[in-house]
């Protein structure tokens, strides 16, 4: 790797990882609203570095809203607003002075349905780097694309057809392309919103294996409906449920093995044993 590429990489993660204490990102007393409707109530959720944190819970309890508050994607919904803090690198990302575009560059996202751009596989990866000010040569960009695709365990399958459309891939490959696209801009945190819900079991298994590998370098937060998945891949689990006003709140949070073997809360036990939800 030569100089320009290194500059680009370091400029993307300028702040050192130690500036936010021990956590990668941390929600403190966070309330999220859609208009006057309270979707998430008083959540305090610290996310450990380079670990996988799973958010589980019944439908409509605000899991996705919670996840999207970590990179201000809720800003795209006109009626959405929040109270409380989301601390990232020692700063509340909801502060008026914080640019959401900058936040999203550091905190990438993978969506429920694979959504590659209708461009070539190569362009899907290179675009994120380009718009974020990549100034390297063509060969450096090629290098970045290759490493991103390798990190997403997709390189061997697509190396001979980089100029084909990203939409020509299968669903599982498309989702891994989306992961490669997200890691090409070297984020600190990757948010995954039910990344396997549209995939078959084999593709799901590949993504789960990939997540374990990626956790060596990245902090991952995943929303999932699939409790086996949470139990298989995550290090920490946050169980959300909702109160009588349909506002979601954090019922229990802990190490995954503890949540799935000795849950402290009766409700958590009922949910993970399939008695409701």
């Amino acid at each position, binding site marked *: 790797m030569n100089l320009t590429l290194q500059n680009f990489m370091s400029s993307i993660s300028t702040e050192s990882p130690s500036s936010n204490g021990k956590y990668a990102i941390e929600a403190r007393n966070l309330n999220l609203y859609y208009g006057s409707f309270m979707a998430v109530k008083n959540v305090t959720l610290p996310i450990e570095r380079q670990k996988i944190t799973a958010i589980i819970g019944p439908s409509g309890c605000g899991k996705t809203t919670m996840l999207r508050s970590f990179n201000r994607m809720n800003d795209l919904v006109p009626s959405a607003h929040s109270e409380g803090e989301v601390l990232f690198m020692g700063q509340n990302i909801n502060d008026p002075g914080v640019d959401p575009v900058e936040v999203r560059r550091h905190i990438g*996202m993978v969506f429920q349905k694979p959504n590659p751009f209708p461009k070539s596989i190569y362009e899907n990866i290179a675009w994120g780097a380009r*718009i974020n000010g990549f100034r390297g040569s063509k060969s450096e960009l090629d290098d970045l694309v290759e490493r991103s695709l390798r990190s997403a365990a997709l390189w061997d399958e697509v190396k001979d057809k980089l100029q084909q459309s990203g939409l020509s891939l299968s669903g599982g490959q498309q989702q891994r392309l989306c992961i490669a696209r997200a890691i090409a801009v070297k984020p600190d945190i990757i948010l995954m919103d039910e990344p396997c819900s549209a995939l078959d079991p084999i593709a799901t298994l590949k993504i789960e294996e990939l997540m374990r590998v990626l956790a060596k370098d990245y902090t991952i937060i995943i929303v999932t409906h699939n409790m086996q998945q949470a139990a298989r891949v995550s290090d920490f689990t946050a169980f959300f449920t909702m109160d009588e006003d349909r506002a979601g709140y954090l019922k229990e949070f802990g190490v995954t093995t503890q949540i799935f073997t000795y849950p402290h809360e009766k409700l958590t036990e009922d949910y993970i044993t399939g008695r409701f939800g």
Partner: protein
Amino acid sequence: MKHGSNPTDMSKSNDSQMVNNLPQRHRISWIWRLVFQVSTIVGIITLAALLYNILNSTFGYIVIETKVDPTSLTSSSLPVEELTKEQLITILKERISQGAFRTLDRQMPFDKRTRDEVYNLVWERVIKPDVKVTYSLVDSIIHKADIEATVAKDYPQAKLVFRSWLTPRFITTPQASVPLFAGVQTALLGSLWTIAITILFAFPLGVGAAIYLEEYASGNFINRAIQTNINNLAGVPSIIYGMLGLAIFVRSLEPITSGAFLGVVEDPTTANGRTILSAGLTLAILVLPLIIINGQEAIRAVPNSLRQASYGLGATKWQTVWHHVLPNAIPGILTGTILAVSRAIGETAPLVVVGASTFITFNPTSPFSKFTTLPIQIYQWTARPQDDFRNIAAAAIIVLLILLLALNATAILLRNRYSRGLA
């Protein structure tokens, strides 16, 4: 289903609340299918009737009488078609008055005119053919013998010829007062100039407004009011836009639309702002609401997941719009623009108000020229009482249809090129 009944006998296995009305339901579907087919067929018949009408007038027999026999013009044995330019000028000099000859020379010196132009002048000024009767295409084919007999009896001096009014000469000749010599070049170029200016202004403005309304504008009262008004504007009668164009472009902005601000007023008659620029701008505001509405539809159809993916990578709003929303919406935007431009090409009323010229024989050379357009030309020709004006009107309609088809084909090709780049 009751126990004990035969499961294969479906009509009897239904319980009492479920009547077997399948034949009736099939009959209803069949009737609706018939209704839809009939509507399609009526549409096709109407179109076919229109085409029949036009073609019927474009071709057919005509009876021509000449004031002067062309063979009497020259002493030599050469027919008039093969004379040189100098010989033709001599004929012209001998046969028309000196004053008329000088006037022609003043309009454009003879040494600058081509041989074909002089040849046409000889026909117009000396030979003076006169169309006595015209027959439709169908009559010409079915009643050929009858026509020949009638003509031989009623017009012994005249010649019966089969004429196609739509010829290459018709397209490359400017307007003239005699249908036999008239062409649509002036009107065709006028239409092309006007449409070019319309697209130049309406397309960027319309797409820009569509992007703003879809991607940037919030749903507050003012924006909703703007949206409602744009939707209503698309339905305003075109003559109203003509009056608006007259007030704004011809009257208020006269120094600009006449070219005076650049010092390029072409001749005193265009100093009043009745120029191609005024016409193009008027048509631009006429089609602007259509382009905005169609553009908005196209932008709305871009899946939101693309925008989210883009924002999720740290793209700004502009990067998202430019790299993802617009490329995906452009086929739809182009389709909408095709429809809007097709409408603009056919517009007559607003241009009459803005001041299209009724009779000009000089081609437009700049946005500040006087102009006429194809629909205006057709309208004027159909309003004439003589039969042969109807024939050239029909020929001009065909030219207009071909122009429309050509523009649409170009836009479809463009659209397909963009669509291929996406998938």
